[in-house]
């Protein structure tokens, strides 16, 4: 069984983001991490490999700057067998479609794959686009934002949460999945895993980037939050608070 997991290097969610030139994030002093949703994808890929036993392998692939080696090492330390870094210094500024095109081409060349995992979104640009788009290009069904997965008899059964309901989906293998929090509890690397990772293959490929279809015209920090309003004191404030929540904030 050949399993492929797509990962991305992103700024830590706790990082203080500054805009450099009205278009880009200033990476200076920002801590980068493995995209948190990709951790669920990696964990699921590793569990499927462990369940399959035998010669099942997990390959991790990313498109990113040369520094993304670090995140790939983490994935290798967690237990993946090999990693591929598609690199280009401007990779971070691609739109989801162009990113998917590069990734799908490389995945295709190295396939065929039985199972393909993504995080449901990368927490930097929040586009949610790469997973479904790569899956389409690979000609695979894509079950997105899954929180439960069962694989048996050549088909995948997955559950996902939708507005006010829970949906159960089924698709034949090979199949792609985008992973949501709740799917599993990602492992941390063991010391043995960290040591073994250094001996695992990490291939770096320089890639050309296709033109992006979406162009960023401006990147601006959100406006400062308006200060809170004190509507009154004690029980006397309740009617006004309820009115404001219902009519102004429209949350009731």
């Amino acid at each position: 069984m050949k399993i492929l997991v797509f990962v991305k290097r992103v700024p830590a969610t706790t990082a203080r983001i500054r805009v450099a030139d009205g278009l880009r994030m200033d990476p200076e002093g920002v801590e980068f991490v493995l995209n948190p949703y990709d951790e669920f994808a990696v964990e699921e890929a590793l569990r499927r490999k462990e369940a399959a036993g035998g010669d099942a392998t997990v390959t991790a692939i990313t498109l990113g700057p040369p520094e993304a080696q670090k995140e790939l090492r983490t994935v290798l330390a967690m237990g993946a067998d090999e990693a591929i870094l598609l690199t280009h210094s401007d990779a971070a500024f691609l739109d989801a479609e162009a990113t998917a095109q590069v990734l799908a081409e490389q995945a295709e060349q190295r396939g065929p794959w039985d199972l393909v995992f993504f995080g449901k979104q990368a927490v930097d640009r929040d586009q949610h686009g790469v997973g479904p788009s790569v899956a389409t290009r690979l000609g695979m069904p894509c079950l997105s934002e899954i929180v439960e997965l069962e694989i048996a008899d050549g088909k995948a059964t997955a559950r996902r949460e939708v507005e006010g309901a829970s949906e159960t989906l089924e698709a034949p293998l090979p199949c792609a999945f985008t992973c949501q929090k709740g799917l599993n509890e990602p492992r941390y690397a063991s010391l043995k895993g960290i040591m073994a990772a250094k001996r695992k293959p990490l291939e770096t490929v320089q890639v050309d980037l296709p033109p992006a279809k979406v162009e960023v015209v401006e990147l601006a920090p959100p406006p400062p939050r308006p200060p809170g309003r004190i509507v009154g004191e004690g029980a006397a404030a309740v009617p006004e608070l309820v009115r404001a929540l219902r009519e102004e904030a429209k949350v009731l």
Partner: protein
Amino acid sequence: MAAAKDQERAGRAQAGPDVIEEIRRSVRALCANFPGAYWRERDRARAYPTEFVKALTDAGFLAILVPEEFGGSGLGVAAAVAVLEEIHRNGGNGAACHAQMYIMGTILRHGSAAQKRRWLPGIASGALRLQAFAVTEPESGTDTLGLRTTAVRDGDRYLINGQKVWTSRAEHSDLMLLLARTTPREEAATRTEGLSVFLVDMREAVGRGLTVRPIRTMLNHATTELFFDDLSVPAEALIGEEGKGFRYILDGMNAERILIAAECIGDARWFVDRATEYARERVVFDRPIGQNQGIQFPLARAYAATEAADLMVARAAAMFDAGEPCGKEANMAKLLASEASWQAADMCIQTHGGYGFAEEYDVERKFRETRLYQVAPVSTNLILAYLAEHVLGLPRSY
């Protein structure tokens, strides 16, 4: 001994900055599963953090210094420093298990080939816990050479009698390293001879000549006192040569000093992080308290003291891993780091005002925990006496 040193060094070359960074990341992720609430609950019950220790053991971090041929990772002290610092920096307490990392060093350096084969693989896997180290006694305290517990050869066994105090984790150890007198002080060839090191199998000893009694302290530390009443151990329990035990213990001290210093650095950084965050957010007199220099300056001072101490820890670790003598550096690292962590603790509780005393903030717990390090494993005065005598060449004061 030279072979053991080479063996340790051969493994050490592998811990480059990327591996250390990966270790830190992984330990951080592990610690995220053990938040403040976990440590508070354990602290309140004075209960051993079994689940945390199991997680660290399973992930292999406690076997970091055991050579690969015995099932460990064969990394150096600098890598172990990263593990312990991260634990403390993330609000945990490595004291529950740090000794599992380094007590085995005495077997590694001075044990016979048979002893190493017999014990080290189990210690590396965690199946055997060797994390109790009985040196201190009620009558002699800091004056280790004055200890009175005796081990008397009796055929192919030794009979042990006496008492130890502050033997931490004895109830959570399968094996214990014990320092006892085998030659009466007046008959010993030199001042430092006559003590011997034994590896006691607690599973056989407790209730058959060894009684363990817990001591309740101001922090959650699983420390105990031990009573030996004709405890019989096999002659194979002796590590190295009879009479050379004090030397063997000194050989292990540098690693211990450096690792404890790493915990202090982790604590200090935790205090500085927490205080900075609180100073930024707490608004009194219509401004964040962190806007006042009266709050800023102690914070900045604690930060600077921590960074300076960390340089000494890194230097001592690098020298240790290069096989260079580092008694001076290891002792200064422990001295400076334990003072920096206490300075940061004091600053942090002051910055938090009344809330620093509320259990929910974890500050008071860490405050109690970090205070220990100026007393144990070695009291600050003894480090100062060491520097004065052995580095500055002043007359011996004790």
